[in-house]
């Protein structure tokens, strides 16, 4: 990393490094540095969304319109109608574009859920072989698989409360236990993903920021300031007239 870098990359790394440290600080305790980073983030994100939003409008609305799809005038009108909400009397007009959006969403949701989350799931369950498999362990696993799937579906039956009582209660019990196993699995597995992510950030600090001139000096200063900011006002060695809230 001894290559001389231009000023732009250096400042970029410094900023990114500081924001990284401040953003992590919240996990320990809320403090003013985090609050600063949080507001920078929200502002930047809002700006970013505006930029991407304008890009989307141009790409998916303006270009087709200039290519002659006159129907797209309607959508621009609808988009503007969204803002009728701010009008005292005609605010209800904004429901039309909203209804259109909801309609598209409902349509997409119905068509994709019924195939991929319902039929396809039944299909791959019924093709599991319980007999005629060479390996008895696989056969057993498949059987367990099918039983658990059936039990969990059964567990969600709402309007026939009788079927969860008495001897049939065992089905709900199996369902609950296997769901707990599934949750335990995913919860613990989730940690692995995050480890690689935290590592990525720490590695950035270590191999990109710290080698820069001055960073080794800045790190302790930044950390001390952070700890100071985390202390409750009355415990601070040096009083400061900031009030929270």
């Amino acid at each position, binding site marked *: 990393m001894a290559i001389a870098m231009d000023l732009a990359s250096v400042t970029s790394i410094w900023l990114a490094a500081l924001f990284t440290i401040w953003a992590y600080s919240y*996990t*320990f*305790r809320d403090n003013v540095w985090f609050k600063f980073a949080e507001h920078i983030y929200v502002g930047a994100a809002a700006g970013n969304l505006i930029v*991407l939003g304008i890009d*989307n409008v141009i*790409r*998916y609305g303006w270009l087709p319109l200039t290519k002659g799809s006159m129907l797209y005038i309607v959508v621009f009108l609808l988009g503007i109608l969204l803002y009728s909400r701010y009008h005292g009397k005609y605010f209800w007009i904004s429901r039309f574009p909203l209804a259109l959006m909801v309609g598209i969403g409902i349509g997409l949701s119905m068509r*994709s859920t019924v195939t*991929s989350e319902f039929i396809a799931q039944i299909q*791959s369950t019924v093709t599991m072989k319980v007999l005629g498999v060479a390996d008895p362990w696989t056969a057993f696993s498949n059987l367990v698989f099918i039983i658990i799937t059936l039990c969990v579906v059964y567990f969600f039956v709402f309007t026939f409360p009788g079927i969860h009582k008495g001897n049939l209660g065992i089905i709900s019990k199996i369902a609950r236990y296997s769901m707990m196993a*599934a949750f335990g*699995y*995913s919860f613990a*597995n*989730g*940690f*692995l*993903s995050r*480890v*690689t*992510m*935290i*590592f*990525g*950030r*720490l*590695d950035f600090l*270590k191999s990109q920021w710290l080698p820069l001139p001055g960073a080794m000096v800045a790190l302790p200063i930044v950390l001390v300031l952070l700890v100071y900011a985390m202390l409750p006002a009355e415990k601070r060695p040096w009083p400061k007239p900031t009030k929270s809230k």
Partner: protein
Amino acid sequence: MSKQEKNIWEKLENLPREFLYGLLLIAFIVPMINPMGLPLPVTPEVKKWYDTIEALPSGAAIIIDQGYSGGGEPECGPFAVAVYHHIFRKGGLRVIGVATTQEGPLLWDKAMAEVNPEKYGRKYGVDYIMLGYFAGVETAMAALGKDLRALTSTDYKGASLDQYPVMQGIKGATTVNLLICYTTGGDQSEGWVRQWYTPYKTPYLCNVLALMMPTMLPYMKAGQIVSLTSGAQAGQMESLVKVPARGIAGADVMTFTEILVSAFVVVGNIAYFGRRASKKKA
């Protein structure tokens, strides 16, 4: 509850989070400063991924979905970078980048800066290209499969596709030999199966977050995905490609932190039962 009443078990049960997080940070930092090169086995899936690319004929076109978000870069990025190294070093392959997340093109630039294809003598427009972001996830995938030129006539910087030799003869899924997707979203990883594998049978390599593995495994079992890997396996890919980077360095960290958190679980339970036992005595 007064302070005297709090016995050691209760204190242990409610360790302050700052203390736990401090331990966790130490578990990150120690192996980072002091890499010990703990063994890192290469799993069959990663090997299969490597072999699939190795087996591609010269001139083959690969479509790559840079489908992760900025937040997921630390996990998906290292694996993607290792694969780019592999592709560009092997040579003779055409890389067509697309993005199903809005940040994709920006992250593609980031990955390219890290890989530096020029180092292997590969040029933009000749060996690789980025077409840009396509909104609508599955609709976009379907449209790309049918005829990508109907969807866009320019690359992500707005230059016409016709001037680039890499795009010659590329129309849709039928003219592409391999599909790769790096993603942090289930909509993407499953969408490509539905929109590309199902209709066109394009061989599909997929790299997801570790926590998405259980949901995605059935697709690999059914043969719809050639190789499914998680970002946490980047170290293995790096050791196969022989470009050690973030992934290998991260492997030691994984061992340390996972064992530490296992210890958290064990200690938490000991404290819980210890307190129950001491309560019974009292």
